[in-house]
């Protein structure tokens, strides 16, 4: 369903996603953080909130990357599929779940780490991994900046 020729991937190698600029991701993430904060500050344990923040981080990252990337689509699918819902997908929906039997354990490991990496061609996997690493590193830098400035504010008071 999401098959793309190499020509498509080649053109997307260089073209940046306009939504994925640092301010856009930052705003999205801050908005998500405020939602986490508003959802019961006192009632929840810090670890529950940390899980919510973590989920928000990945969700914002994937949402900002846009639907053009297989990893962002897979990540959003995984996040939105909350556990304990009990609602199974209809049998009519055929998912392209044809895992690539890799002989190389490193390739298998990479497929597990990159969201949606199970069924891709090797070439596509490398491209998705590169984009995923880039976005993940940016998300980490963003969160580090937020933590630093929030700690800074904390220490001033």
């Amino acid at each position, binding site marked *: 369903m999401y098959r793309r*020729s*190499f020509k498509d991937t080649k053109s997307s*190698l260089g073209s940046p996603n306009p939504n994925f600029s*640092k*301010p856009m991701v*930052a705003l999205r993430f*801050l908005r998500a*953080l405020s939602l*986490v*904060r508003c959802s019961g*500050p006192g009632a929840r344990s*810090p*670890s529950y*909130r*940390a*899980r919510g*923040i*973590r989920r928000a*981080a*990945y969700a914002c990252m994937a949402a900002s990357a846009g639907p053009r990337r297989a990893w962002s689509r897979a990540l959003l699918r995984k996040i939105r599929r909350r556990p304990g819902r009990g609602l199974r997908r209809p049998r009519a929906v055929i998912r392209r779940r*044809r895992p*690539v*039997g*890799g*002989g*190389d354990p*490193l*390739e298998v*490991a*990479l497929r597990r*780490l*990159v969201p949606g990496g199970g069924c891709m*061609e*090797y*070439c596509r996997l*490398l*491209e998705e*991994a*590169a984009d*995923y*690493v*880039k976005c*993940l*590193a940016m*998300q*980490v*830098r*963003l*969160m*580090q*900046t*937020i*933590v*630093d*400035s*929030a700690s*800074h*504010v*904390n220490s001033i*008071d």
Partner: protein
Amino acid sequence: MSSRRNRVVSEEEINELISKLQSLLPETRRRGAGRASAAKLLKETCNYIRSLNREVDDLSDRLSALMETVDTNSAEAEIIRSLLRS
């Protein structure tokens, strides 16, 4: 190797993607001058992704702890200021 390839992937394309991936890894992980082998690069990439995931977890914990103590209204202005600066 996938047996279900419907197009031939040239060595050149793979090399191009590998060098792109290599350029994304931080300096400390790019051990060995020049072009690393594909296997080494895959290993470094996996390690890097794992460490980034751990950092996200750690930063989420710290943010969660900070949320309790920090007065969020004053913090947000400072946060946005520093984000725009960087």
